[in-house]
């Protein structure tokens, strides 16, 4: 968060409670000091992991093109499930959006579960989730423009012109609520785990946190991935099928 850093309250009570984003390398950017943070590094790791996964899957598909086996079957299953989900949610305009939904689902899920591997989840930084939500926002507005053309602006005055400010706020509240939902959930998990690891004696840190990891990283991460993708699809389909 780019605000004034207040003295950390938790640092006063625990010995090493630490869940903030850290700057690693300072860069000078038009006179402003910007930092390469831990979020950038973890995002890069997640990206490399997804790329490696894609390359391995591609090789497996190319190798057994005639009769698919092993990994190729698994990938096919995942893609088919994804297509079915997008088709059942978005209706007849599903085709161009399936790739995007698949990409963000993979990215968000692996980013959310990266807490399992000792990384600080990239989605626990508001910058990541806000940019994801802004992509969705642009797609929503573009879909609205594509179907409604300039009636898109007169729609804001429906059903009575007095409601214009409320409608505009409603349009801009979509990316804010979408990004805060993902950020809040993952950040809450990050804070809970770092409090557990930072404040409790050593015998509480062995074994027990596994359950917390299952709930906060796996369960919560999977649910939030699904919800982000579902809401993106619902909002776009709403405008697209109007």
């Amino acid at each position: 968060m780019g605000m004034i850093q207040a003295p950390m309250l938790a640092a006063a009570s625990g010995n090493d409670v630490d869940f903030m984003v850290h700057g690693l390398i300072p860069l000078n950017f038009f006179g402003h000091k910007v930092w390469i943070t831990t979020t950038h590094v973890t995002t890069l790791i997640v990206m490399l992991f997804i790329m490696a996964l894609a390359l391995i899957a591609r090789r497996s598909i190319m190798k057994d093109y005639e009769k698919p086996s092993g990994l190729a079957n698994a990938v096919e299953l995942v893609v088919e499930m994804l297509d079915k989900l997008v088709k059942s949610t978005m209706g007849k305009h599903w085709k161009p959006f399936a790739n995007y939904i698949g990409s963000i689902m993979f990215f968000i899920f692996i980013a959310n579960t990266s807490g399992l591997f000792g990384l600080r989840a990239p989605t626990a930084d508001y910058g990541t989730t806000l940019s994801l939500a802004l992509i969705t926002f642009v797609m929503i507005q573009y879909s609205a423009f594509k179907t409604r053309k300039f009636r898109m602006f007169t729609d804001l005055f429906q059903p009575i012109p007095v409601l214009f400010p409320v409608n505009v706020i409603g349009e801009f509240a979509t990316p804010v609520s979408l990004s805060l939902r993902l950020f809040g959930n993952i950040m809450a998990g990050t804070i809970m785990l770092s409090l557990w690891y930072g404040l409790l004696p050593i015998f509480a840190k062995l074994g027990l946190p596994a359950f917390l990891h299952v709930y906060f990283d796996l369960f919560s991460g999977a649910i939030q991935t699904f919800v982000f993708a579902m809401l993106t699809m619902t909002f776009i389909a709403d405008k697209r099928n109007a």
Partner: protein
Amino acid sequence: MNISSEAFVLGCSAIGAGLALIAGIGPGVGQGYAAGQGAAAVGRNPGAKGDIMSTMLLGQAVAETTGLYGLVIGLILLYANPLFAKL
């Protein structure tokens, strides 16, 4: 008794963060109600379990947003306090 202005702002921020998390009551009740209705719907029509499940999760996630606004305000008050800039 003398209290420095930093300590006063810090203490009031901590109380404010605690009060902000009262917002968690609403989503708790709402999500529980949605889950109950979902269970009833599955009981009435077990074949539509998948659809009911995804609809329920979607509704619960939307209901959760208000609670998360409270959480974010609490986090800002504790870790990125904007009030310190005004001292």
